């Protein structure tokens, strides 16, 4: 088992460490860090917008570059959290709580270095766990039938929507919209055309890249404009690693040694669970660290552990999210959904057999994550002054870059003006969804998984002769059905418990 993993990793390293692989990994990581710097523009948007740039590459190199953008944006998102109290994306929000107070205390340098080390630690632990878990999970999942697959997709989508605070219902509608858009084109079972309105360009279905770029790229951009980012002046910041106060002290490392481990473990678990991802991982990582600390009152006032915990967690979660993607072919977040769409675009068949049929691709990607983390820690520390300079660019000048990349990229995919208009419409819908509390990520996830969900559901329906008994007759299906029920009922149970305990507390207080 161990020797097999080592030989697979060697195979992956021979691909990822090639000059071409390293060049595109470095490029992806660099661009990802820049993507992470701009608030409101997360990894999903970054990958979607830059996807057309990888069309000329072979699939492994392209996905290595996109994966570099994915985890590079996690590293980059924290820089603004620490320096200007503005998280680059939601997964780095928890890092502002102690990161910004640290910068205010004059410890921006140590905070940036420690976040880079924590990100490296979390990312590397995450990749080690992927190496150990992904093949076993894929092996286990190879025995899954259509009912298990359908249930996993349903659980993933439901978890994604139930993680949305008060907007669970709108998240559910967002997923249904994705399924509806995914039903356009030729039916996989019968070959009949659906919702094509006689347009030959819709026979192949609504191409997910245009929708993803529209929802994430144009939608996010319009939302940032609504919030007035284009009217804000650029931040003029200067930081140099030659400064004496740039480096963390021994005390910082000594105090945080277990925080690295705790944050990574929590983050990885959050990442593996479909739907929860890096945002929740970083928040739980922070909360747990505060709970176990002997001095919780220091958190929020510039405590290094309060920065290390969410940073280790969000990077471990990014790696963890790759486990269901690589072993089951099921993404758990918007960013991994776009990656899955990219897999399909290059003709790869995601699922448990991916690791068997395309070992060079899977192990090349996993090996690139090890290398990517090394590249990113070097970039994060020694290129901080350079990345800080990017903050000098006013958002007004970033807007045309995003628009041109989105429009030209969407057109270049199939030289189709219809798809370019789909991008524009998706942009408007994505903006409205963001503004009114819907989830573009759930829509993209459902769009990408739509045909698989339909196929597996109909197969289960046919196998059980219309009774759907297959969902509880097979042991794994039964367990998954129970989990699905728990996911559906948990919010109601929690509300009920809050009401009952709330009433009891009030009653006790009244008696006193």
């Amino acid at each position, binding site marked *: 088992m161990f020797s097999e993993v080592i030989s697979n990793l060697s195979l992956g390293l021979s691909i990822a460490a090639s000059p071409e692989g390293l060049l595109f990994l470095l490029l992806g990581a660099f661009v990802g860090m820049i993507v992470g710097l701009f608030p409101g523009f997360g990894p999903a948007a970054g990958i979607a917008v830059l996807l057309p740039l990888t069309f000329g590459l072979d699939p492994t190199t392209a996905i290595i570059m996109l994966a570099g953008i994915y985890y590079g944006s996690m590293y980059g998102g924290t820089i603004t959290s620490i320096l200007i109290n503005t998280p680059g994306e939601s997964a780095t929000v928890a890092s502002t709580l102690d990161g910004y107070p640290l910068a205010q205390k004059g410890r921006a340098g140590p905070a940036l270095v420690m976040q880079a080390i924590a990100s490296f630690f979390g990312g590397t632990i995450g990749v080690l766990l992927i190496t150990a878990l992904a093949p076993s999970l894929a092996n286990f999942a190879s025995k899954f039938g259509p009912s298990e697959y359908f249930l996993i997709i349903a659980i993933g989508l439901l978890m994604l929507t139930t993680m949305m605070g008060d907007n669970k219902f709108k998240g559910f509608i967002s997923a249904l919209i994705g399924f509806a858009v995914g039903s356009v084109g030729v039916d996989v079972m019968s070959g009949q055309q659906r919702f094509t309105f006689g347009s030959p360009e819709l026979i192949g279905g609504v191409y997910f890249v245009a929708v993803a770029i529209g929802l994430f790229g144009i939608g996010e951009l319009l939302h940032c404009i609504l919030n007035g980012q284009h009217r804000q002046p650029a931040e003029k910041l200067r930081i140099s690693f030659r400064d004496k106060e740039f480096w963390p002290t021994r005390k910082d490392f000594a105090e945080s040694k277990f925080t690295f481990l705790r944050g990574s473990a929590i983050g990885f678990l959050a990442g593996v669970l479909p739907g929860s991802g890096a945002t929740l991982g970083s928040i739980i990582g922070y909360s747990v660290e505060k709970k176990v600390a002997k001095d919780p009152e220091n958190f929020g006032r510039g405590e290094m552990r309060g920065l290390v915990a969410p940073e280790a967690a969000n990077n471990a979660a990014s790696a963890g999210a790759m486990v269901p993607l690589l072993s089951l072919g099921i993404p758990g977040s918007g960013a991994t959904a776009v990656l899955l769409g990219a897999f399909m675009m290059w003709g790869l068949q995601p699922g448990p057999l991916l690791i068997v049929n395309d070992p060079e691709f899977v192990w090349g990607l996993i090996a690139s994550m090890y290398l990517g983390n090394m590249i990113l820690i070097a970039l994060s520390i020694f290129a901080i002054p350079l990345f800080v300079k990017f903050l000098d660019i006013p958002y007004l*000048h970033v807007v045309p870059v995003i628009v041109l990349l989105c429009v030209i990229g969407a057109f270049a995919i199939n030289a189709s*003006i219809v798809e370019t208009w789909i991008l524009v419409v998706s942009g408007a819908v994505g*903006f409205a969804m963001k503004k009114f509390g819907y989830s573009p990520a759930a829509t993209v996830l459902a769009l990408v998984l739509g045909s698989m969900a339909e196929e597996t559901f109909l197969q289960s329906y046919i196998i059980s002769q219309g009774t759907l008994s297959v969902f509880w007759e097979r042991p794994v299906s039964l367990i998954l059905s129970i989990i699905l029920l728990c996911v559906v009922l948990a919010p109601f149970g929690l509300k009920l418990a809050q009401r009952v305990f709330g009433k009891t507390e009030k009653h006790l207080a009244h008696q006193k």
Partner: protein
Amino acid sequence: MKKWFAGGLLLVAVGYTIYGGSTLMLYTQSGRPAAGFFPLMIGLLLIVSCSVNLWFDVREWLQERASGSGHAHQPEPAAEGTAEALGLDTHTIDGGQEHARDVVIVFAYICGFVAALKVVGALLAMIAFMLVFLFTFDRSRPVTNIIYSLALPGFLYWLFKILLNASLPLSPLGF
């Protein structure tokens, strides 16, 4: 606006279900589910959930109108969830003054850009979009705007057309 968007979604859901129901078969002759089965399920779920959603949004609007308050800004779900978990005000994460007029302007420019793509070609359409956009929002630096409007489209044209050999629409002048 929120309730109008919810209403629009309901209309689309009804249209999707009716069109699917009238053009697609539900079952094959052998009694198996056909092409219309899954869309009908999704359509019905959409109609029910969009109706409930519209009801919630209208009720919220009526409550706001009755109390004389209104939501100036609808927080984004991620920020809302994060703020809730951290015990912060969502406004600190995702708030601020709204610039709805600018959104309309930028969106109109994007539509104009896409409409012009096939007419004047990708390069000229990109340059025109950038000039119009930059001079709308920042007239204080005309030279920078012009240089940037030529340099960025030039670079992207080179990247897509020459380096990646992508198919981009050409202008009547052949570039």
